[in-house]
């Protein structure tokens, strides 16, 4: 063995001896502190994900199926709500603009009018009558001028009411409570009107040359000057007969055609014939 090899062997023995018999080591507290610091440094060094990564994790990460379901449900509810709101909004004006049944306003308006006519001496009645006349005049200025021969033509008067939006009925309860009395009053008023019309027709038959005075008398007799409701059918048929007698056949035909449209279920020709006979009978008997 060479001196160099001997020296290397001695060196190895001494180093190994030191390694084996050196007992120093760090405390457990230092070990824990260093390892905790390493872990903490890692936690702090972890970069916080950006908003895009967080959004991606939120959309497609854990629990994304529930989130998608909730989002779809929310969207569906929103769509249904929006659809309902728009649909209701479209329907509301149609509902309010629907014309009221032809018979309903006529009945409601006829009842108080007949009651008023039953008490003609009342000052309130006179005042309301004047207001009604003024309103009618104003409406005529705004609306197309009706035929001069029919200043109070019932269809022309009813047409704007049918076209106009239904007005809120004031005090419907009062109207309903008055309906029974109004029916009785209406019957009485119709009878009176019929009697007046008959007498006027007789008077006009005695003076066939129609003039303005006759027309005014007829209108007054019929109560049409301030009438704002449709007159009874029989009265209007008599009006047709009067017009025919006065030689205004075109106006008579036009009025008859309107009546046919209003009362398609009625045989107006037969009723006209019956009225004609009824009117002629007194004349013939005379």
């Amino acid at each position, binding site marked *: 063995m060479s001196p160099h090899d001997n020296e290397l062997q*001695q060196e190895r023995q001494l180093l190994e001896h030191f390694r084996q*018999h050196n007992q120093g080591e760090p405390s457990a507290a230092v070990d824990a502190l260093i390892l905790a610091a*390493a872990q903490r440094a890692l936690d702090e060094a972890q970069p916080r994900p950006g908003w895009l990564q967080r959004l991606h994790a939120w959309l497609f990460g854990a629990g994304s199926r529930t989130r998608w379901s909730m989002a779809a449900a929310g969207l569906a509810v929103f769509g249904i709500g929006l659809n309902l709101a728009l649909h209701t909004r479209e329907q509301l004006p149609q509902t309010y603009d629907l014309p009221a049944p032809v018979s309903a306003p006529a009945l409601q308006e006829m009842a108080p009018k007949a009651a008023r006519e039953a008490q003609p001496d009342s000052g309130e009645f006179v005042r309301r009558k004047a207001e009604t006349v003024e309103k009618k005049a104003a409406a005529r200025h705004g609306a197309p001028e009706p035929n001069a021969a029919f200043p109070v033509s019932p269809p022309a008067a009813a047409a704007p009411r049918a076209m106009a939006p239904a007005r809120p009925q004031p005090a419907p309860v009062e109207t309903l409570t008055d309906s029974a009395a109004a029916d009785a009053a209406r019957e009485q008023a119709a009878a009176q009107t019929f009697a007046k019309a008959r007498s006027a027709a007789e008077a006009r038959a005695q003076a066939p040359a129609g003039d303005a005075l006759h027309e005014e008398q007829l209108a007054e007799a019929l109560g049409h000057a301030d009438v704002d409701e449709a007159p009874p059918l029989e009265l209007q048929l008599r009006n047709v007969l009067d017009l025919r007698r006065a030689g205004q056949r075109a106006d008579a035909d036009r009025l008859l055609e309107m009546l046919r449209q209003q009362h398609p279920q009625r045989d107006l020709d037969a009723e006209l014939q019956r009225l004609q006979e009824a009117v002629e009978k007194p004349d013939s008997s005379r």
Partner: protein
Amino acid sequence: MNQPLQDDDAALLRRYRNGEAAAFAQLYERHRLGLFRFLLGLCGDHALAEEVFQDTWMSLIRSSSEQREAVLFKTWLYQIARNRLIDHWRKSGRHQGKLDEYDEAQHASADPGPGPEQQLLLSRDQERLRAALADLPEEQREVFLLRAHGDLELHQIAELTRTPAETVKSRLRYALNKLRRLLADPASAEEVSA
């Protein structure tokens, strides 16, 4: 022989930098005892050795830079520990008298080295080991500790201490000779010589 270990150390450090805490624990376990015994042998103070030991690992943890490929991780770690201890000595004003008074040439001629019969008679007494180590000059003790506990090669020690390789070699040889002489059992030596 150290090449696989070197690769392992660098890989562990990389894994730790990438967020794997277990890699650091493995790296720490691998170098824990050697580094601490190196510091304890160098300063002789358990508390100071722990303080510098902790500082060293904290520096490694806080440092975000990757280890240079050309430098062995172990060399890097021991260099940090050595610099920390020197910094502490500078701050505390400790004067390394032995370092200044040590004359390598005188020791080189005076230490004939123990005979073969003395090698088996080395004392296993811990106090004698510690006392013998403390009796070594600073540079020789540092080289010996780096060789014994760091398992560093001479050229690595030369790089770490920024000392020529031949100087490191002679310092190690002087240290070994002196330790053999100090640790040799006098009674046994007398019996052999008689």
